[in-house]
């Protein structure tokens, strides 16, 4: 569907993207994940046409669109701020793109009301100013506006970042539901690992203008390709030499020429263990109670380790 071949983007002397290669498949929910300034938004803006790459090619359905103007690419965008026109009503916001396409009034009306229904916006809400809507409703307007012109793909640039935590979770679920309903190819930009893991079919993890890894959420989390991905996706302990040696004595067979990492939830404190678990003594230095789980800081073989243990009421 969308293919980026060796994309390089430069801002003056600074290279923002180094040879980016991505292939987003039809109907896929694909996420660009990474910290601020890693190049994820730049990649998205290259796809949408706001940035021209210094070299490389952007393909959409095998057609080279690298030099195609923004408005001819047929890509819907949901912006970080939603970019809803404040001087227009909800109806006019959604109808804006259709009016530019010079469709008949009746046709515009039908399309606007159809899409509004699909994203759960009432007729009454259509006549309101966008400032009169809640954050969630505004997001739906932004999605409706992006989808009403029947784009080939939809790009979402951190659309949940301005919302509070509770609303973010709620809208994340709605977003996923809507994407499934519309079946549209979606490219999603975020710096939030949780968002990326819960929403995506596949994720590309960006760092300093490079892609560190592309994979499914499971691959990214459980089989991280680089130390950066390891650290960026969830908390992790890096095992130092002392602990690696101790584990090898117990038959772990870890290659000492490599670095080894273990997720916090893979370590347990005072639990009945299965046969494939390794048991060693450690001293609990502190514990933080979170309700659903408890976080421990323990010391073993001279190294500090962090552990997350599910709270089942039997924790020490």
């Amino acid at each position, binding site marked *: 569907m969308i293919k980026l071949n060796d994309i390089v983007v430069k801002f003056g002397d600074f290279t923002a993207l180094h040879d980016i290669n991505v292939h987003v498949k039809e109907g896929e929910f694909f996420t660009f994940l990474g910290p601020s300034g890693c190049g994820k938004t730049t990649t998205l803006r290259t796809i*949408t046409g*706001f940035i021209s790459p210094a070299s490389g090619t952007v393909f959409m359905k095998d057609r080279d669109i690298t030099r195609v*103007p*923004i*408005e001819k690419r047929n*890509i*819907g*965008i949901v*912006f*970080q*701020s939603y*970019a809803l*026109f*404040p*001087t*227009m*009503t909800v*109806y*006019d916001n959604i109808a*804006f*793109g259709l009016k*530019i*396409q010079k469709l008949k009034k009746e046709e515009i009306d039908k399309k606007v009301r159809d899409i509004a229904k699909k994203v759960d916006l009432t007729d009454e809400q259509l*006549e*309101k*100013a*966008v*400032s*009169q809507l809640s954050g969630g409703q505004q997001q739906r307007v932004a999605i409706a*506006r992006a989808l009403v*012109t029947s784009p080939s793909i939809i790009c979402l640039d951190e659309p949940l970042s301005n919302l509070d935590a509770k609303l973010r979770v709620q809208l994340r679920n709605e977003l996923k539901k809507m994407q499934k309903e519309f079946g549209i190819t979606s490219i999603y930009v975020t710096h939030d690992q949780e968002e990326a893991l819960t929403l995506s079919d596949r994720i590309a993890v960006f760092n300093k203008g490079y892609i560190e890894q592309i994979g499914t959420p499971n691959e990214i989390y459980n089989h991280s390709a680089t130390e950066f991905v390891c650290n960026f996706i969830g908390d992790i302990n890096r095992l130092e030499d002392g602990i690696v040696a101790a584990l090898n004595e117990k038959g772990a067979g870890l290659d000492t020429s490599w670095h080894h990492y273990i997720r916090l939830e893979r370590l347990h404190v005072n639990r009945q263990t299965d046969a494939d678990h390794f048991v060693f003594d450690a001293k609990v230095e502190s514990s933080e109670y979170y309700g659903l789980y408890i976080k421990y800081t323990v010391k073993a073989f001279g190294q500090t380790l962090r552990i997350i243990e599910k709270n089942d009421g039997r924790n020490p």
Partner: protein
Amino acid sequence: MLNEKRIDSTFVFRVIGLVFFAYLFLGFMVVPCWNTLTSIFTEKTATGDPDPFAVIRFFLAGNMKQYVWNSLKLAVILVITVNIVGISIVLLTEYFEIKGAKILRMGYMTTMIYSGVALVTGYMFLYANDGILTPLLTNAFPGLEKTWFTGFGAVVFTMTFACTSNHMLFLRNAIRGIDYNTVEAARNMGANPFKVLLKVVMPTLIPTLFSLTVMTFITGLCAMSSPTLLGYDSINPEIVRLAGSSTADESFPQARAALLSIILALFTIILLTVLTAYERKGHYLSVSKTKAKLQKQKINNPVANVLAHIYAYVLFIIYMTPVVMIIIFSFQSYTAIRMKRLDFSGWTMINFFGTEDYEFLTSRGTYKTREGAISGVFSNEDTLGGIKMSFVLAALAAALACVIVVVACNYISKHKKSGTFLEYALLFPWLLPTILICYSYRTYFNSTDVWYVANTNLYYAENVKLLIIMAYVVTKLPFSLRMIKAAFYSIDTELEDAAKNLGSGPVRTFLRVKLPIILPSVLAVFALNFNALFTEYDMSATFASKYGKTYAMVIQSMTMDEGLYGYNVNASGRRCASTVFIMIVSGIILWLVYGVGARDLSERLAAKKRRQEFFAKRFGGRKLKTEP
């Protein structure tokens, strides 16, 4: 192909824009003012030899220094008096708990709806030699001369109360922005309200006070209407006098006028540079995470409390007396105004509409009647002519300034480097006193040698209107730019991206997306510019042309001898009615700007709904069209 076309049209627009702004900047800002500057050094001796320093020698040897000194003296005294009154009225209405603060505030804010020549003539109506309050004052204070309201004292008195509008706007906002928790913290540590005021509140107001001080100083230095009408020899009236003088009467008057306007410009530039440098430091920013709204402080000491109340109401009386008296007398008959006595049975609208015959005693001892000589503002040809002239000139100039600035801001917001040049070019008139610009126009364009205006003498006859419009536009550019640029920068850049993504071209994006967002600000700037220009006196007085006689010039002429041989009859009545008319116009404009104009779409939709419900109810539930 499509791209090439767009590049071509963009390029053409850019070239046209560049040529236009270069023409405006060089042709109407730099060249005329440069001509004024050089004219100082082009004088010749009696034998015809060049004498570049003749004017400067004249300045140093003669009494010209006196005008500069007088202006400086006025500026320094005003800084003290305006700050004392300005700070007190803000503290009395916003910081201390004073009974009737809302009414007091309205009184103190009256200078916002009438200022300049209307205000000065209003004060003259009360306090001048034949003013309505003069007998009362001379009776109350036997030592007071009937002519007390002239010269330096009168100018200081009038301008002290006329120039507090900025305090009511900016200092009021600053004091409202104070975090009340800091006041509470100081009180908690044992500070009394006055200590809190001095040690906590005042230091946070210092940046605003500094800006206000500089602005007041410049106002004092460039004062025009008060010194002209009240008879004080300061720089501006002298420039106007010299500009109209000829070499037959005195030595190189034009060059002297040029020197005085350049001196004024130098002072302005220095002061504004100091102000800008100070503002850049950005002191005293609030560090509060969450601000608490300021609560008014009760003055616990009963004596201080009573004194504060007395002071507040004395100021209120000073502010309100001219307003009330003018409003009342604007509905009084010609005789009542002449006799300075209220006639409670003779209310009339004659000062606004209609005419009456005027009977007067001739030098031969016979009575003569001049038909329709007592006329109202809207029946008097001269006054109505001035209103129409000011209306057209102000509306055209205000609109033109807005259009130029909107186009410029659209460019500046997109092109940072070249946009900066354009921005500075449009801010350039800020450094120049308006009198320098107008004087420069008057002298430079009073010739058929200026090729870039098609060798037309723009000061000649009706052409002067064009010159006045240009002067109005140029002097309003800096203010318009500062306001509209701020509006442009508040536009989310993603909106433009969104419009582009939905297929909208640059023109459509500008007209449908950006312009509606900045439109309230543009209209506000238009209204404020119009308001200022409609009653503007300084510039039209500098041009001093009968073809460009503005409303303020007409009002000024109303202060001349009244009724002599049947001329200028009922000028005082029209003066009062004019002030009332100006108050109404300004009041409506301020209401439109800050009331209606500040509404966002949701408020406008709510108002529309209310209107529809009202009409539906009123016209028997007839179904109204609500669908788009």
